[in-house]
């Protein structure tokens, strides 16, 4: 299969430009910063671990919070997921994507936690989102009541799918893999979840 944009240079060795096509895919595997942090952490550097944490904590915590709506539980889930990552550092292949691996752990644990809470709570009891302690930055721009209230109307599995799609930007196919669901199930949960969210969000306008 000859490429239309093959570059013939001649007898001297020259650099091939890798540019082809008008768009750029997300980096296969990890972004450069994560890869560098992983390498550093695997070489035994605490700074590498801290950098890895700094790069991935926000989304891990937000994902957990948006599924469980409980600050303490979100902290436990995100923290435990990072500790699992640290335990697995020695054998983690830097070519494999760290973010999706971490998010898979976070979201699956968050779903499990939410199911357990649902099983424990009384019928008719309304769980108000836990807004936790208001640190300085989160006072400035935290999740709005409209979002958290709208999300709490969805089941945990639906919330997880919506969070994976709109916060963590995974495709439906990737979500299907992470949650080990058929793609059709992911698509239908997304559709129903978004329909409910739109109604709830529009009601706040």
């Amino acid at each position, binding site marked *: 299969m000859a490429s239309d944009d093959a570059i013939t240079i001649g007898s001297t060795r020259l650099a091939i430009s890798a540019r082809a096509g008008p768009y750029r895919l997300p980096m296969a595997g990890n972004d450069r910063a994560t890869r560098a942090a992983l390498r550093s952490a695997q070489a035994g550097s605490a700074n590498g671990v801290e950098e890895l944490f700094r790069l991935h904590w926000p989304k891990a915590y937000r994902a957990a919070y948006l599924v469980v709506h409980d600050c303490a539980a979100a902290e436990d889930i995100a923290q435990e997921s990072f500790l699992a990552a640290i335990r697995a550092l020695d054998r983690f292949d830097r070519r494999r994507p760290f973010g999706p691996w971490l998010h898979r752990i976070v979201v699956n644990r968050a779903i499990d936690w939410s199911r357990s809470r649902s099983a424990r709570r009384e019928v008719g009891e309304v769980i108000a989102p836990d807004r936790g302690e208001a*640190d300085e930055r989160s006072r400035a721009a935290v*999740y709005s009541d409209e979002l958290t209230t709208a999300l709490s109307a969805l089941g945990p599995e639906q919330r997880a799918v919506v969070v994976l799609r709109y916060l963590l930007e995974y495709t439906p196919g990737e979500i299907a893999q992470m949650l080990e669901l058929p793609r059709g199930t992911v698509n239908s949960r997304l559709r129903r979840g978004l329909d409910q969210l739109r109604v709830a969000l529009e009601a706040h306008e």
Partner: protein
Amino acid sequence: MSGDDRLRELMSRPAPGEDAAGERSLDSARAAFAGHVPRGSHRGVRLGVALVAASMLMLATALTPVGAAVGAWIRDAGGRLVGADDPEPAAQLPASGRLLLNTAGRGAWILDENGSRNKVGNYSEASWSPGGLYLAATDTDGTRLLALTPAGKVRWSIRPPVSTNGMADPDEMPVDDPRWAPSGLRIAYLAGPSIRVIDGDGSNDELLAEEISPVPGAWRPGEDANVVSFVTDRGQIVTANADSGQELWRSAAREKFVQLEWSADGQRLAAVTSDELRILDGEGTSLRRYRLATDHPLAAFGEVHEVAFAPAGSALALTRERGGGAVSEVLLIDSLKPAQKPKPLFSGSGLIASVSWAPDGEWLLVANDGAGEWSFLDVSDPERRRVFADTPRLLGSRPSLPAVSGWCCREPPSP
């Protein structure tokens, strides 16, 4: 703003308690890292096996002549062969050759077929040259590329130049994944967002291409010229003559490839994404796609993790996992017969980190990091296997899970 965009915007804000929780969790992460020990999911099993092995060791030493290697394979009550329970358990290979091992924080090591180990040095990313005469490696900072003898003598080292695309931060530009060409005359390696090629004697270090995905280059065997394939950051596979810089072909598809590997005869290229294995011919034409989506009509697998072509012939070993590594399998594919059903070789719990062929092509080493054990499979009779059940302590009392870089040939005789 569309509804989707609004939802994204709402979700992109900080969550309540995010910063305070982050500070507490970072403290926990620091503490865990300071005292972290690789965690095997089969810690209990390993202990049980060790107890059985200890009792079998006593029986074995009673029956074998004095001076017989204590580190010999011992068969446990379940019929599996396991390593002896000593502080530095020995792992003898079932076939000739040497294993090259990379560890996090403990350098590169060579494990000989008789179980002896020697440390090459504090290097990373070590890989074999053809014939096992030399190694290519990087320093632990990822700033230097080196060529070494297996005994650890440095032949040459270089510090690659900063890439010309302006990314001047060395922390984000590690030297990585050196790979010797089958001719032994060139080494391809990654330097940040570029792929470079250098002569085997350390001369003529040149940039081959920029804006590259961090996937190791794959040399194509069986060519007169030194031909290498790599992945651009736009997800295209490019195959080029590394000597002239001429691009031979470029894939039309754009995918998130994580591994490329050529067959031993240079006629087929395996290209792996997280959910698909593609077999391409020597000109880049797609011959077969193994899709992994669970609801796809052609679905055959879970998540593909690693592929390895046999040292001769058309066989390809493929690992896959389900449930985040809860179940892992190794399958054998004939890349010349894409319609043929894959042959299952191995199934077990735990995450498989790598598969490595013995130089004779008759054994396959399956490194099950989740269980902390190596399984050596007889490819012609997968039921016949040998298991070394203590890989975390293979290189000493401090736990460390070694990564298998390659199973190469015996040490050549001294001139």
